[in-house]
């Protein structure tokens, strides 16, 4: 499915297919299982209480957000290298879905923080670097959605996308140092890293499966939508050329 040049690519004909319908169905089932185990069957945590249930969504969301960023950088590199429009759209889809899951990560993190820490926001290293990740993604999307020709948007966004993962890594590193050089991160150590067992571990596992399936479904559909949009835009080139040439004929009849 890796194209040589944009013109030779055969892309999807619609946003749905048998495979994605199965994928969507699996994602729904997994979400159902997650609700069953996460909200009903698994027990409350000894130290965190009921709010531990937020973690079954929070942790997988953060993980797939990073996978989305990775897709964006990978797609941008291949686009710049091979001029592959297919990969450019993968990068775009990756960034958009990553943004969604970064927002979910932040919101669930804050909802978890309110009962656990007593406030919605603390300048914790992980929370802060997730907020920075959101800002970096919004920067990419701002460039990708510029009101300009496709080539202009795509090329400039690809440079930003290429630097996305390095930037995320540097920001994470600096924020980690920033917090740890002055005060030890005590808040999270009694939260995430405490022992989780049995049904709780299984619930978290289900969370990973369900969120990954939703992520995959969203990526595929966002990609197909973007692909079809570009097809609509580039369609009609032959007609446009014919119309343009017709101007010349009219000019000759009435000089």
């Amino acid at each position, binding site marked *: 499915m890796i194209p040589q040049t944009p013109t030779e690519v055969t892309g999807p004909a619609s946003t749905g297919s048998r495979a994605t319908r199965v994928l969507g169905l699996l994602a729904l089932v997994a979400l159902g299982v997650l609700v069953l185990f996460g909200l009903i069957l698994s027990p409350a945590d000894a130290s965190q209480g009921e709010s531990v249930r937020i973690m079954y969504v929070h942790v997988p969301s953060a993980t797939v957000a990073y996978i989305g960023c990775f897709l964006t950088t990978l797609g941008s590199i291949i686009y710049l290298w091979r001029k592959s429009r297919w990969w450019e759209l993968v990068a775009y889809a990756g960034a958009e879905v990553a943004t969604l899951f970064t927002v979910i990560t932040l919101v669930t993190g804050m909802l978890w923080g309110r009962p656990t820490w007593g406030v919605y926001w603390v300048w914790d290293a992980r929370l802060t670097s997730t907020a920075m990740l959101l800002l970096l993604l919004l920067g990419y999307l701002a460039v990708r959605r510029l009101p300009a020709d496709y080539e202009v948007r795509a090329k400039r966004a690809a440079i930003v996308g290429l630097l996305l993962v390095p930037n995320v890594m540097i920001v994470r590193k600096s924020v980690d140092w920033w917090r740890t050089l002055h005060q030890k991160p005590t808040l999270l150590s009694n939260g995430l890293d405490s022992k989780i067992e049995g049904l709780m571990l299984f619930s978290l596992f289900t969370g990973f499966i369900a969120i990954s399936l939703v992520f995959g479904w969203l990526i595929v559909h966002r990609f197909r939508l973007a692909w079809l949009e570009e097809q609509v835009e*580039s369609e009609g080139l032959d007609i446009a*050329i014919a119309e*343009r040439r017709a*101007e*010349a004929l009219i000019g000759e009849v009435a000089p």
Partner: protein
Amino acid sequence: MVHLRGAVALLGRFPALAGVDLDIDRRRIVLLRGPNGAGKTTLLRTLAGLVHVSEGEAVVLGVDLLTDRRSVRQRVGLLAHTTGLYDELTVADNVAFWARAARAERSDVDAAMARLGLDGRLRTVPVGRLSAGQRRRTSLACLIARRPELWLLDEPHAGLDQEGRDLVDQLLREATAAGATVILSSHELDRSLQLADEVVTLSGGVATRDS
């Protein structure tokens, strides 16, 4: 020198050139004419290697524009409507910067400025304070200091006085005598028809040669 066959160039999604066929030999002066919006400016920018040719054949100065546009650019001189000059720098600084960027000799820079009448009081005037005609002279000085092999001029006579227009014609004749090729668009038909060896009419993004 120039060989186009069915060349298509898109501006965004608009086919400004819709299949142009054009062959031009060395040392010729070719006049492009046609109504506004016919594609004259796009054709000149395409030949300069600035616009991507998406279909057809396009070879300029022996270089295939479909695979390599960069190496053509240093060998052509384009006089466009927009000047690209820095308003806040003086005439001398502008000509020196653009000519030295193209690796022109210092003596060529001075000669070019003298030729265009920019060696006197105008030298130290910021370009932002020049008249349209003086700006055009500055652009022309940048162009001739580079000694291009192919001259591409988009309405070179516009904005110039009688003396300036005569000077342009003279420069073009000298250029072809020295081995260069010239393609110009102009609405000054009487003057240009006298100057040109051949005339190409562009309309609706398609070229036809007048015999």
